[in-house]
């Protein structure tokens, strides 16, 4: 199997006020070596929670990982000790966050923050680390790399900071890069630069990327395969062409139709009525049922499994029951 990361039946529950919020409720997905996997879905559907669970960076209290496994290479990350996990973090799996503005420590220079990585994981000396850091900055196309080393985050623009974040994430040559909405906070022209850079790095270093976004445009440009999440679950998975050509799940379909197009005029947009249900509020049945145009009685009673369709596509909708191949994941 060439899966670098394989998440099975992951359940991450937030517990507060004695209320359980099943933010991630049975997620299955896999990232293959060298590919870019896109994860899309509305706000709050559990994208970040999933990725933080992989990194084991969730808050210490108020969280329960209720089930599932996360296999990275041969090991289950959920079973590693904290010390073992620290060796994975940054070194083998790196992460970039959405907010480049706040993800860098404001009181240390860029250089100080960049050097930490290699001194920690690779045991570099100060001088070596510095050289390496400058190297990395150059790789992410930062002009005046030497000077930037001694500057503080607030002296850089958002795009620059995100480059620094990427440089930092890449500096231990991780095998997997988790990018949680890396460009959402940036302007389109800057976003284009960053996406370009990520593509380039991926091609050069062969890093696998798990790209979380809510922007289907970004998905279309960057990803090989896409996982669509809705209310804590994976509702559809497909390679990027299939997804845009023939989305199987009604939610994906609705999503596609509700985006205004920059290159075409539409009188009216299609829209999905209603709101995403509160996590845990749908007791049974399909979580999308209340907004689904194709809803049937079964939908509200029985949760559809993730049907395996042709071409590696998967969809969590009863409509696909017939079309489904034999193997069905619950």
């Amino acid at each position, binding site marked *: 199997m060439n899966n670098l990361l394989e998440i099975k039946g992951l359940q991450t529950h937030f517990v507060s006020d004695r209320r359980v919020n099943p933010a991630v409720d049975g997620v299955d997905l896999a990232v293959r070596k060298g590919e870019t996997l896109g994860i899309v879905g509305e706000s709050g559907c559990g994208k970040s929670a999933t990725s933080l669970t992989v990194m084991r960076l969730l808050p210490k209290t108020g969280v329960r990982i209720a089930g599932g496994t996360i296999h990275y290479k041969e090991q289950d990350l959920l079973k590693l000790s904290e010390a073992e996990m*620290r060796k*994975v973090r*940054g070194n083998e799996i790196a992460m970039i*966050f959405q907010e480049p503005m*706040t993800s*860098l420590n404001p*009181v240390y220079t860029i250089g100080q923050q960049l050097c930490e990585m290699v001194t*920690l994981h690779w045991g570099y000396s100060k001088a070596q680390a510095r050289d390496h850091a400058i190297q990395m900055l150059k790789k992410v196309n930062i002009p005046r790399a030497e000077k930037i080393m001694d500057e503080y985050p607030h002296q850089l623009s958002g795009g620059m900071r995100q480059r620094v974040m990427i440089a*930092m994430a890449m500096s231990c040559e991780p095998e997997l890069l988790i990018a949680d909405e890396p460009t959402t906070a940036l302007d389109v022209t800057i976003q284009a630069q960053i996406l370009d850079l990520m593509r380039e790095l991926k091609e050069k270093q062969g890093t696998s990327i798990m790209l979380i976004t809510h922007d289907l445009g970004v998905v279309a440009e960057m990803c090989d395969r896409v996982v669509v999440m809705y209310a804590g679950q994976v509702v559809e998975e497909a390679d990027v062409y299939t997804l845009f050509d023939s989305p199987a799940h009604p939610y994906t379909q609705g999503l596609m139709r509700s985006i205004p197009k920059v290159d075409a005029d539409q009188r009216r947009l299609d829209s999905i009525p209603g709101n995403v249900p509160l996590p845990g509020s749908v007791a049974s049945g399909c979580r999308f049922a209340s907004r689904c145009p194709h809803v049937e009685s079964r939908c509200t009673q029985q949760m559809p499994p993730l049907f395996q369709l042709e071409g590696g596509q998967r969809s969590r909708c009863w409509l696909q029951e017939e079309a489904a191949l034999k193997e069905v994941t619950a």
Partner: protein
Amino acid sequence: MRFLVRRLLLAVPVILLVTIMVFSLLHLLPGDPATVILGQEATPEAIDAMREELGLNQPIVMQYLKWLGGVLQGDLGRSLVDHSPVSELIWQRLPATLELTIGTFVVALLIAIPAGILSATRPNSWIDYTSTFFALGGMSVPHFWLGMMFIVFFAVKLGWLPASGYVPFTENPLANITAMIMPVLATGLRESAILMRMLRSSLLEVMHADYIRTAYAKGHKESFVIFRHALKNALVPVVTTSGLIVAGLLGGLVITESIFSIPGFGKLIVESIYNRDFVTVQGAILVCALMVVVVNLLVDILYAVIDPRIKVGKEAEQ
């Protein structure tokens, strides 16, 4: 340097205002200096003569300007009561108060920093609850009462420490330290509580910051994340509070000073108010205000040292 000069210049109107406030406040006090200084048996003639001599018959604005003129030439005037130069009185009283202030502050920091870190990094644990409870308890004990209880316990019952009586450090360091233990603890506990709460909440806030998550994502240990990445960021509000505490202590130790009979600055001011020794009060409060200005300045400089985003000179509006 330019910044320092400008900051000090900016402090001038504040200090002028302080002096005007003191001046007016003192003159609102019933009981003029001549009456009070001369005491019970004084005849009206003696009081008049005294008023004349002290220049109290002049219009109040003139009195103020005259005093101010002296101050500008570096002369704080002479005490109305014993004619000694006010600056000398202040110099005599400052060491004890400074010692008390520094001691209090050190005690506060020694308690607050470990306790604050422990409770912020283990929120809602028993450590957190205990230190929160003790901190809030510490904030709630009237420190003069604590001082009294200390005396009862450590001095009277156990006889470990002298009940009171200040000995200058230069005279007898050991006696000085034993005499300062109780007062420093009595005030230090309270201030440590305040600082600890401040550190806890600011550290808690910082621990939720994105860059802390980044630090963890790099694979750092928790202790490294806390001490290297979080603590420095959490210090700004702590420094602010420290500044307020130190500024408050300089003139605010009156009660501690009177419980433990420490000839301090606060006591000087209060005694002088009671004696209607206006010149001394004005001088002392002026010095107090100046010290507050200096402390604030130090706080600002510290801000800039801690946080590169804050340029020295940017007013830190709370």
